[in-house]
């Protein structure tokens, strides 16, 4: 079985976002870069399948040179091969097309991704790859079982869980709860240093969409504290919600 895991490098969730001078991207100064959190669940699931079904795991990231950190980390965790698709594309369709072009014809049974790359928050690259490669898909998956050429996935929907059954090959996007990702061992980290990361050209930077502006959220109106004993505070709050906010 062959598995491809798509890993995106994103700003750490702690990052205080500032808009760059161009007015349409974030200021990269002081940004610490990490693997997108959901991608860690995707990778962990792939490594578990490697352990239980002798799968071969390839990781791919589309981005700049710094994305090698994400790939190196994945190698330390147990991925077999790593590929960097060099590009600074931001359009989901352009990224999905480049990832699909890489995967095409290589016989992957499973393509794992995060359900959303935090930051861009597009939540679209997974289903786009599935369409471009004419594969089955299951998104926001919290449980995955692989059968003989088939899969059964549980995915989160409003107020419940949906059970999807389908044929391999498939694109599965991971949600928190799918598994508990492991930490890299010292042996893994040392081993990863010796492995090579294959590099090739990725997508053209222009795609079907482009970001033409970026602003900070509007400042929230000044709030106020409600004083007194709990019963008074409660009464004051309900009064304010009723009369000022007009919620009730």
């Amino acid at each position, binding site marked *: 079985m062959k598995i491809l895991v798509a890993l995106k490098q994103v700003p750490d969730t702690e990052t205080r*976002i500032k808009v760059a001078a161009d007015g*349409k991207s974030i200021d990269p100064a002081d940004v610490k870069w990490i693997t997108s959190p959901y991608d860690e669940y995707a990778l962990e699931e792939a490594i578990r399948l490697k352990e239980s079904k002798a799968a071969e795991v390839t990781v791919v990231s589309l981005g700049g040179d710094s994305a090698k950190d994400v790939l190196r980390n994945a190698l330390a965790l147990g991925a077999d091969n790593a590929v960097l698709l060099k590009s600074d594309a931001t359009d989901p*369709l352009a990224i999905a097309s480049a990832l699909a072009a890489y995967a095409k014809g290589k016989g992957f049974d499973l393509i794992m991704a995060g359900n959303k790359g*935090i930051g861009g928050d597009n939540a679209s690259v997974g289903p786009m790859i599935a369409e471009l490669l004419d594969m089955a898909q299951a998104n926001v998956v919290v449980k995955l079982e692989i059968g003989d050429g088939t899969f059964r996935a549980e995915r989160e929907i409003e107020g419940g869980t949906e*059970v999807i059954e389908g044929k391999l090959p498939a694109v599965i996007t991971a949600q928190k709860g799918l598994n508990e990702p492991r930490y890299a061992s010292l042996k893994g980290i040392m081993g990863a240093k010796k492995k090579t990361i294959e590099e090739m050209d990725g997508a053209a930077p222009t795609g079907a969409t482009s970001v033409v502006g970026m602003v900070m959220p509007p400042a929230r109106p000044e709030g106020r504290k409600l004083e007194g004993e709990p019963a008074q505070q409660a009464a004051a709050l309900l009064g304010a919600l009723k009369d000022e906010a007009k919620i*009730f």
Partner: protein
Amino acid sequence: MILVFCELKDGNLRKPSTEALSEGRRLADASGKRLGALFVGASNGGAADAAKYGADVILTCEAPHLASYSSDAFAAAIADAVKTKGATVLLGGATAMGKDALPRAAARLGAGYAGDVTSLSMVDGKLQAVRPVYAGKAFATTAFSSAVQVATTRPNVFIATEKPGAGTMESLPAPAGDFKAIVKEILAKGTGKADLTEANIIVSGGRGMKNGENFAILEELADALGGVVGASRAAVDAGWGISHGMQVGQTGKVVSPTLYIACGISGAIQHIAGMSGSKYIVAINKDPEAPIFKLASYGIVGDLFEVVPELTKAAKALSLTAQ
């Protein structure tokens, strides 16, 4: 044409669909286009309701084998409808199904996609979308260069307004039945309550709740206010039996209710990212320095175990109903 992919639940038009239709109507009026509502699967009576929200045409793509959702079949049906009708803009609610089917349909059409948008406009005949990025730490404007432009609208942001349209019914041929994947069953939690992303009022608990049993007091308050319960990641990860589906934040649900009440939540950057789009924020925290107060429309410094029951009592006495 502007086409809106619509969803039914128990035969009724879902709220996120009515919101997308209303926004579609507005854009159609602004650009002199017609508005189409598309239903895939079993559409029974509810589809006709799309006319109330301004649909000029109601397109149904029905077949027994489409009764269960299949991402590849639905994406194919949606893309076919776009082509048949020559639609240039395709919208839908940013629901579990919308976010599953529409990016896939976009790829099939070679179209650009903007997800979870909070504002839309037509600029020089093309769609432009404003959407939160970095979980709401910033807002980006997305411009499209593709012929077809696809977007999903974030629930609870666009206002559904009734504006009758002609609602001419038209049926479309269904795709063949050999699907790559299909929904086998839905394991509902059966609460019957709104999902966090669609809820108007959310009462959330954090580490300050001390254990899972204590969430019962939040349930009571939420019931009295007509809301649902959410949680911080600290509460979800503490092993209190709080499901991840309840987590609000950058790696949980991003919500935009009218009212968000944070109980025993400090206001970490990742939590704020998920709820700062709420219209009114109430913080109940015993630490007057907690960062959550910087965001709060109304702050209550106090012990939540004293304040929350008082709130429930007062809310019950008023027998409130949200407007």
